[in-house]
């Protein structure tokens, strides 16, 4: 369907939850402080002292194979690029968070679409650093990661390099949307 599909690899056993990727993303895309975060870190803690389990998880846009955000958008503001499968939004077309009741956000199983806190804010989200991608560079989060827990690229290549594992702690693979991410999972 698509020539290639790009996506992410995340080694959950390496993530210290430092949030350098979150801030690098805000810096690169010039996003002011506030609730709009194209990259987020999800935290999970289980167990009772002293038997504790903790995991961190990245949450960019997973550029799903079947993005459910696209059909629900009343104005067709979201598209999936044929050449690489990157899901991008035309914020100029977006009606804003109030007028359409954030349909894309409600549809997305990973809460990826970001509206910011202002009334009428248009949707924006992780675009796989499209500007960098077009220059042959990896997304800024990848080069930021101090523990090298992240990689990105053509999913077929990532799978041959890192394997096929689709789920990890705190992450359920959506058969409906088919997120483009594979993991080295953290288990306990």
């Amino acid at each position, binding site marked *: 369907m698509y020539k290639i599909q790009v996506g992410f690899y995340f080694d959950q056993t390496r*993530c210290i939850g430092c949030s350098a990727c979150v*801030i690098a993303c805000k810096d690169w895309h010039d996003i002011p402080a506030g609730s709009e975060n194209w990259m987020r870190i999800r935290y999970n803690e289980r167990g009772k*002292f*002293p038997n504790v389990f903790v995991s961190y998880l990245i949450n960019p846009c997973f550029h799903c194979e079947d993005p459910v955000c696209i059909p629900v958008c009343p104005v067709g503001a979201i598209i999936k690029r044929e050449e690489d499968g990157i899901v991008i939004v035309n914020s100029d077309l977006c009606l804003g968070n109030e007028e359409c009741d954030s349909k894309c956000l409600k549809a997305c199983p990973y809460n990826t679409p970001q509206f910011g806190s202002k009334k009428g804010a248009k949707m924006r989200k992780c675009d796989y650093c499209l500007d960098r991608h077009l220059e042959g560079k990896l997304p800024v989060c990848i080069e930021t990661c101090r*523990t090298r827990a992240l990689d990105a690229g053509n999913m077929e290549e990532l799978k041959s390099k890192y394997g096929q594992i689709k789920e990890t702690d705190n992450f359920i693979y959506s058969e409906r949307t088919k997120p483009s991410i594979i993991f080295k999972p953290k288990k306990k």
Partner: protein
Amino acid sequence: MENRENEDIQIIRSSSAFDCGGRCPLRLHVKDGKIIRIEGDDYEEKDEQLRTCLRCRALRQYIYHPERLKYPLKRDGPKGSGNFKRISWDEALTEIALKLKEVKKKYGNSSIFLVLGGGYQGALHDGMFAMMRLLTQFGGFSTHYGNVSSEGAVYATQTQYTSPFVGHSRNDLLNSKLIIMWGWDPARMISGSDTIFNLIKAKEKGIKIICIDPRYTDSAVVLADQWIPIIPGTDTAMMVAMAYVMIKENLYDKEFLDKYTVGFDKFKEYVIGIEDNIPKTPEWAEKITSVPAETIINLTREYVKTKPAALMDCQGPARSAVGELYNRCAMTLTAMTGNVGRNGGSAAGGLMGIPYGHMFFGSRIPPPYRNPVETGLKSVRGSLDLQLRFQARCHTNKTFDAILKGKEGGYPFDVKFAWFVNNNFLNQLGNTNKSAEALKKLEYMVIADLWLTPTARYADIILPVTSIAEKNDLTRPWPSGPYFTCVNQAIESIGECKSDLRIAEELADKLGLKEFDKYLDEKKTLRFLIKLREDTRKNIRNIDKFRQDGIYRLKLEEPYVAFKEQINDIENKPFETPSGKIEIFSQRIADLRDPENPPIPKYMERWEGRYDPLNKKYPLQLLSPHPKNRIHSEMYLVEWLKEVEPHVAWINPVDAEPRGITNGDELLVFNDRGKLTIKAWLTERIIPGVISIFEGAWYNPDENGIDRGGCVNVLTKDAYSPGGASALNSCLVQVKKFEGGV
């Protein structure tokens, strides 16, 4: 200095220079004179890239923060009110010069107090060096002694090795078979830009990692095969019990001890109970530490049998009343297991420094002569007598007590004029409320800073300082190179900001100090500074390239290992201690005859620990570790950083529930020294009986004297251990839900 990426954007290669254990290469993208983006190291060996953390990723919001100071300010209201009016540099420096001359004439030079921190660490523009040079030439000044962070480890390593270079190259961790991280969280406290990644590589190589800590730290989250939670302040009891197991089971390296150490017999007498009739058994330690005796025994056997093993102590547990004894016990264990001086081992000692690119060897413009206020004193060289350090100085954690009490309080000076540079000590030293009282009474205060910090609010004059993007400089990593970096100017000064060096030079004119040398030509001076030190002179052949790259990486043929020379050839290369060996027993300390400062490492309870009777009134121990989203209190105002981790107190549900505290509740944390409010974060990641508040949040007292900023030091004590460690982690508090009243 620049690479052109496209027509509009210049890439300036620079480096951080904060009071941070990371020194990270930065690529500043500059367009139309403004930094628009920041990227990190792009070294071709990706595994060896020195990747910067979230803090310098947010550097843009720091440099361009709307609250950055842009003009000199003069107080325009009561001290501490925060009311200031803008004045010109000429007015500010004229007033300061007049005041300095007046104070000198009336009270003498010892009443001029220079308060020095580590907030900016460049060879040329560091205000510490500039102001020391200036005030030396003005007739002298008083100052303070002791590093807030690491003094316990400094004293301990001076005692047993007489060298601060106790570290290995970080990649030597990969030569280990077992790594014991004892009170060390490099995921947050960046002790080396590449440290956490080397530890991850070690773990993935199959090296077992054990974390001993009151908290399940972020380092433990990714590294720990085993987490051993321990009651704060009792690490030494567990270490001594490990020595007991080694002795009882005959597991220690006698040959190593005979050949390389002195005083083990005296330590052994203490451990097995000859000295005090208390055998330091694992069962004895279990009652103190809460670590099961079986865990202590198993860990000891594993540690002894796995060679080489790296016991990595750090500085946090020593930042306590226990202080240097923690590092001394750790060093003793590394000697008993023969792990000193070998690849994959560790000398312990908590400082982790290697003598390649280390900040201790940094260049500076030397003062032309000794500070006149400190001439004619007894020599401190080689001595472990802390009192000698206080002939003309106070302890750093007594800075404000000294300001408050002066000679009447037993200090060697009465402060009438204080100059604060590179620090926010009101916020960062113990007992902030008392410190604020001291600053209210201080006759005259000048501070040079980028921000209207809680400390700056008490100043008479505030001078605005440039950020690292606004000057050229050299800097070095704190503990571990091996590399050198440059700070390269990317933008023009914001507002009317000046570097600390320039401030000193202009003040010299106002003071009429014609002999004060100026270094106005940065390029020439940086060349001079590079040539000043042997390591930079020898290695950096192409200075222009070094400055353009922003970094020079030293290539070591093999990892540096502390004391390898001594271990390989003790006859010809003795340790620098008086005995030439590792001093488990220190005659220099014995000679001080201070019962609080034992010549052998021991477990001592001291004060404000779990077993202090004060525990009845204040039953929780308070820890104040390094935050990840600030460098101490620096960068506190940066919103990107604030939002990634709200300022919360870690508290175990076991402690929260009986107090009716649920997650997210506003807490009142209090003791006799102060009160603060902060949100509760209920977590199983902290041992019961302990709460943890990251240091560095800004002090913001309300009209009832309750700190609403969550500055942990309103609770901590302005005290130090016998070896000089600032005892900020020995602190007892009580906690309740904050209902708006007291």
